């Protein structure tokens, strides 16, 4: 199939769709640009919902099931919105042997969520990363995008609680 040449009407007049369109255009609306496009959607909207997947599929002339298959193959893509705050714990080898499983367990117990989940109040999402490449500072965790090395379970827990309470207060 030949790629289309003009843009499709986006699902809404949200300005962020323009960024998405620009990415697709840069790749000549070819299917090869699917992953790049999904990255842009994820960056702009925080996650990939059905509407955006349909729109991307239609624009790139890609089968829906293929777009869904690609979105669920890669771990950085998320089909659900993340919580207001995020905590990513590194599960790399160095972090593992330096005690990250303890922190993970502690968070899971305290907030009642497992890795990949968000608290019911939508405040905190717990995620894991395969290796953040900061092994020299193991164990490592990322709080709201801020990477923190040599984390200590107590401090980390205090920090997370502060994040949660700070917003509820």
């Amino acid at each position: 199939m030949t790629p289309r040449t003009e843009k499709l009407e986006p699902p809404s007049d949200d300005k962020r769709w323009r960024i998405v369109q620009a990415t697709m255009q840069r790749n000549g609306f070819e299917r090869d640009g699917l992953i790049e496009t999904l990255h842009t959607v994820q960056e702009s909207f925080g996650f990939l919902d059905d509407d955006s997947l349909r729109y991307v599929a239609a624009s790139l002339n890609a089968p829906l099931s293929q777009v869904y298959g690609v979105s669920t193959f890669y771990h950085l893509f998320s089909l659900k919105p993340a919580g207001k705050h995020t905590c990513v714990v590194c599960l790399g080898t160095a972090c593992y042997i330096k005690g990250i499983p303890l922190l993970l367990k502690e968070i899971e117990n305290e907030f009642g969520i497992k890795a990949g989940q968000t608290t019911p109040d939508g405040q905190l999402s717990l995620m894991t990363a395969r290796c953040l490449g900061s092994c020299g500072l193991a164990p490592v965790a990322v709080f709201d995008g801020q990477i923190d090395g040599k984390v200590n379970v107590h401090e980390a827990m205090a920090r997370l609680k502060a994040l949660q309470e700070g917003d509820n207060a």
Partner: protein
Amino acid sequence: MKRPFKTRIKTLKIDGIDVGAREDETLLELAQENDIFIPTLCHLEGVHDIGGCRLCLVEVKGTNKLLPACMTYAEEGMEVTTNSERLQMYRRQVLDLLFSERNHVCSVCVSNGHCELQWLAGKLGISHVGVPYLYPQLSVDASHRFYIYDPNRCILCTRCVRVCDEIEGAHTWDVMGRGTDCLIISDLNQPWGTSDTCTRCGKCVQVCPTGALFHKTKAVAEMEKRRDFLPYLRTMREGRK
């Protein structure tokens, strides 16, 4: 992924028999021509191969890697063994793993007696499964007007995906997730019956080797698939080229 070869003839040995081959022929095609049996599951004549099930692995002298017959091309002077003790053991283990992955209780399956997985197990002499069952609980999709999809019997061979894409051109199916969480899904992981792309052609149902895709009207052990369907696909595909 066939390369545009100028047809040249290669001579090689399969299980000690001298055979001549065009260089665009795979070892599997050659074996079949010469009545040598190599078990397969993911291979489907007429669509491209993926080398996923690993049942067709053969030994080739000079390399200690086992090669998938369905995707290995004939080469001059090759000496191929298709059925050593070791290969048989690995093939039985592959089937073991497939049986353990989902839920294959043959006695209650529509394809009982007509299932390629079951048939191969008999043929390769499997009497019991040597690994614990994993038994995931997956929900059956009966939303389609004519067909039912039961992921509990799916072996992820992706024949349905390839036939629907390459022959029917609908690309209704694809695989989601990865590893053992892989699942065959239609469109945006929605009930098959709500799919806009499915033309209800039934090709996927015909080529499914197990009881994962079947006709609604079929009861236990009644689902026989039309095998003459496969050469038909091949002709169609060649017509398309």
